[in-house]
């Protein structure tokens, strides 16, 4: 590879660039310009050959030269944009050769990156639209992508453009079809019926891609099908058979297909889809079988009876990997669809013999605890777990067992009292895991308070998840993902994409970070949870402190002297003192520091001010006397309102208390 050149190569290249005849040979010209990308120190030599190349008679040379402009620009680094060159490239958009036109777009996009890329105005847009048919599929896809940033002026123009683009929805190339679809979706963002119409038309090509011979294309198409289903749940329902898995497909495609099947299920196809999914549940691949069971579980939220029946039958197979997942599905289902509790409770007895893993055990124990009063043998099953608790390896299972047994004790005390005692004894005396031990201690002390208190705490009304289910039909409008269509976002999934792009972003603005947040370098001053607590206080009361209160020191002094102390209090304060920390924390709750002594001064003083939304001012003096280990707070108020004063004091107390906690 002659790239990343040695001295000789650079010299040779310079010689070639100086040679006026290189353009005579198109291939040599191409070779020279292509190699230019990573050659430092040839900048001054390439300008002329590239400018000459732009005006060459041979289209092949022009193609190379146009992209050469972008290379030249990137090679110069942060050099300024050459206006004349940009104009020349804009005029080359009218070139006869279609590849030169597309290369011009690409080149301008790179050169003008700082300014947001190439501008597509009306004449350019219409020129490109008219040239579309002359381009090959790659050019078409590229131009469709550039046209995304054009905004038609009128509705009439918009529909003219859509008519022009219509034929590209029928193209043989999936890239062009998807590019055109995206353009339709974006341009017609105010016309939902046009969007739906386009999505109906793209169904055929997408389904063809889903059963394509190329696994990779198939996968990407499936991801996009899922994206469409999020907005139009019934869109592919009549084509459900296309998403049946076949034996030879790779795992990742099967998983996607199962997801799609879950989402397109409706009254007409639910029978067939469930039958198909049930077939997968006994697949030789345990992973795939489990995915299929979870899929049935998610369909069960709508078609509960059929699914619970299938799941119950699966328990009859007495296979470990199946039983554990079925029980987990039951747990989620009982929570979301309480009407199936009866059926689930009848199915549960006997399955404890086929569960070995932590997740499955937790689910089973949870079910036995919460609905134990309906399962006759629940105490005996839990007793087995209690007997074997010593050999239990997962702490999470022990935690679950503690809670479940306590719950069951409330409904069936006679059968559970003895083993609850044994379990608590074991957890407190012998258990090595601190979390389990603490949980045991907690329940023990709770029981000491009295059974009514335990009932009040463990059986208090829960949030009702069924309501959440009702308001979450996932009806996201097409416009929320139209800009992600035909990109990598649906392929990665939205959440993964967010983390990926966050990584990118962090890297990009990395060097600037220290400037904007100088204190962040020394670690967060207030841990997340504390911060939340602090902010909660003003919200819960009637007190609302206004942010960014601007008070001059003079005004503060005048007001301070004119008012009487409304409240005085002493808080304990041990050990060292960090004024910066305090100031930061106070700022979080919108209390401004007007003045304070330098760190280390004894006694230490600070003056604070805050104002609530009604205009009431709170002026505060903090006085720290290290010899007494206490902090004296004096608050003055310009309007006498005891309610708000109380809230303000409690805010202040919380902040100071928090700081003290962190410190110690």
């Amino acid at each position, binding site marked *: 590879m002659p790239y990343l050149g040695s001295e000789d190569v650079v010299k040779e290249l310079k010689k070639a660039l100086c040679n006026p005849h290189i353009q005579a040979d198109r291939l040599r010209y191409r070779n020279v310009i292509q190699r230019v990308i990573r050659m430092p120190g040839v900048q001054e030599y390439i300008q002329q050959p590239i400018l000459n190349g732009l005006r060459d008679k041979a289209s092949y040379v022009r193609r*190379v030269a146009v992209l050469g402009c972008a290379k030249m620009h990137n090679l110069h680094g942060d050099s300024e944009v050459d206006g004349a060159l940009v104009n020349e490239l804009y005029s080359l958009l009218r070139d006869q050769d279609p590849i030169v036109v597309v290369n011009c777009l690409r080149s301008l996009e790179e050169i003008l990156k700082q300014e947001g890329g190439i501008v597509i105005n009306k004449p350019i847009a219409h020129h490109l639209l008219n040239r579309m048919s002359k381009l090959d599929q790659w050019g078409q896809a*590229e131009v469709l992508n550039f046209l995304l940033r054009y905004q038609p002026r009128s509705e009439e123009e918009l529909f003219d453009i859509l008519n022009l683009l219509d034929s590209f929805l029928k193209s043989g190339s999936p890239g062009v079809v998807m590019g055109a679809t995206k353009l339709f979706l974006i341009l017609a963002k105010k016309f939902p019926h046009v969007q739906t119409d386009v999505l109906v038309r793209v169904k055929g090509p997408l389904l063809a891609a889903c059963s394509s011979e190329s696994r990779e294309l198939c996968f*990407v198409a499936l991801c996009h099908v899922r994206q469409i289903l999020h907005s139009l749940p019934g869109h592919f329902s009549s084509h459900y058979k296309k998403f049946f898995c*076949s*034996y030879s497909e790779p*795992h990742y495609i099967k998983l996607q297909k199962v997801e799609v099947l879950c989402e397109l299920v409706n009254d007409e196809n639910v029978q067939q889809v469930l039958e198909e999914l049930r*077939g997968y549940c006994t697949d030789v691949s345990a*992973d795939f079988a489990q995915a299929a069971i979870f899929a049935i579980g998610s369909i069960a939220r709508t078609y509960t009876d059929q699914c619970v029946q299938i799941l119950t039958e699966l328990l009859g197979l007495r296979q470990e990997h199946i039983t554990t997942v079925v029980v987990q599905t039951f747990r989620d289902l009982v929570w979301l669809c309480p009407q199936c509790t009866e059926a689930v409770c009848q199915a549960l007895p006997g399955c404890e013999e086929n569960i070995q893993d932590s997740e499955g055990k937790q689910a089973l124990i949870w079910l036995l605890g919460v609905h134990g009063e309906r399962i006759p043998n629940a105490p005996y099953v839990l007793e087995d777990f209690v007997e074997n608790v010593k050999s239990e390896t997962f702490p999470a299972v022990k935690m679950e067992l503690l809670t479940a047994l306590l719950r069951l004790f409330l409904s069936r005390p006679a059968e559970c009292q003895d083993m609850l005692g044994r379990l608590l004894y074991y957890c407190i005396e012998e258990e090595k895991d601190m979390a389990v031990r603490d949980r045991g201690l907690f329940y023990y002390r709770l029981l000491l308070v009295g059974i009514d208190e335990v009932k009040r705490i463990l059986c208090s009304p829960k949030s009702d998840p069924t309501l959440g289910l009702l308001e979450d039909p996932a009806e996201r409008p097409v416009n929320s993902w139209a800009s992600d269509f035909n990109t990598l976002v649906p392929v990665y999934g939205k959440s993964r994409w967010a983390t990926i792009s966050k*990584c990118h972003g962090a890297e990009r603005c990395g060097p600037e970070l220290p400037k904007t947040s100088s204190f962040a370098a020394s670690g967060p001053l207030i841990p997340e949870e504390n911060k939340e607590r602090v902010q909660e206080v003003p919200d819960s009361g009637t007190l609302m402190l206004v942010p960014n209160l601007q008070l001059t020191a003079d005004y503060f002094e005048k007001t301070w002297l004119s008012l009487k102390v409304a409240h005085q209090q002493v808080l304990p304060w041990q050990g060292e003192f960090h004024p910066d920390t305090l100031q930061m924390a106070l700022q979080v709750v919108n209390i401004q520091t007007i003045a304070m002594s330098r760190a280390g001064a004894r006694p230490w003083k600070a003056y604070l001010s805050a104002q609530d939304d009604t205009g009431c001012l709170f002026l505060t003096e903090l006085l720290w006397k290290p010899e007494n280990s206490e902090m004296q707070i004096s608050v003055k108020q310009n309007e006498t309102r005891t309610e708000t004063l109380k809230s303000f004091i409690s805010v202040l107390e919380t902040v100071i208390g928090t700081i003290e906690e962190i410190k110690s």
Partner: protein
Amino acid sequence: MISQFFILSSKGDPLIYKDFRGDSGGRDVAELFYRKLTGLPGDESPVVMVTTGGRRHHEGRHFIHIRHSGLYLVVTTSENVSPFGLLELLSRLATLLGDYCGSLGEGTISRNVALVYELLDEVLDYGYVQTTSTEMLRNFIQTEAVVSKPFSLFDLSSVGLFGAETQQSKVAPSSAASRPVLSSRSDQSQKNEVFLDVVERLSVLIASNGSLLKVDVQGEIRLKSFLPSGSVRREVSLFPGYGPGIRVDEVSFHSFVNLDEFESHRILRLQPPQGELTVMRYQLSDDLPSPLPFRLFPSVQWDRGSGRSTLEPKPRSLNVRLHLPLPRGVISLSQELSSPEQKAELAEGALRWDLPRVQGGSQLSGLFQMDVPRPPGPPSHGLSTSAPPLGLGPASLSFELPRHTCSGLQVRFLRLAFRPCGNANPHKWVRHLSHSDAYVIRI
């Protein structure tokens, strides 16, 4: 915008590596890709992967790849590109490399490294696609392909895969189509040939009671042209015969195809470039005009753990294989097969019954006996002995059916408007083939 392109062998050795933009790390990115690919958890898709952590200059780089003929063709990019476009480009590159090197494979690529780099130089510049048309590329490609074995028409050992017969009732060796498209420059003696393949992939799902749950046919008409280009005007007319009762859905044509006479006379006209081209794609669902090529009559008895299955293929078929997953723990197998050519064995928890050649209209039967360990657990909870234990079936068949299309679509006539220039008339080969994508019979 593509940053890098590379080709890895099936074992992860880099065969081709090209950096288009110089904005990314060196060749170790290929190694990184292979490490990521092999270390991927089973439920994640390898098609598109992103690099995170590790070396800084690899951060946030997306790998998009296809697997083709055992090779990995990979591009990397740092932008949020169109996945459809890139995958299409990769498969087009695979076809192109196949056209130029004869066939795509580890051997052909490593023998033709110079040619591949030359091609890449022309196809992509600074990470942007310039052209992929064979016609335009042939003007710039100087290197000749190195072919491992000289092609001989009389090499009869290779007769057969498709076994297509032409008007002259000659037999086209299956390797005839896998030679470089452009080698005619040096070797004038080679024939002008056009191969037209109608290939259908069949996916079928049959319920245990024999009713048809799903039929899906994906069809393609592919044209591979070895005609010399340049001075000669070439026009190919196809007459895909749609008889009454033959219908296809979701037809899409290549943009080169002239459809003026399609509606009236079912004629497709095109001027094919050299190399391979997919003329037409179609799908057919649910209603097949012809009966299914295979019927399987399974009968399973559980008292002794034996199963008899009877296979009834309609047309002549090749390389038939029945794959039947078996319950866990099956150890022994005894078999009674109807002909010595057949073979049945246990592999990876499944029964494999191979039938290299099957006559049309025949009925074949096999009797298999297996010992299945009783499912654990006390019998009171257990299943009754007649119920099938978990893990049997569904049976899947794989096969090739030469000279048969399930949709009934056939190319009736292939006419070349071709002015012979000293050479003999070009040979035309029309081949039809159906093969199984997934042919599943529930038991």
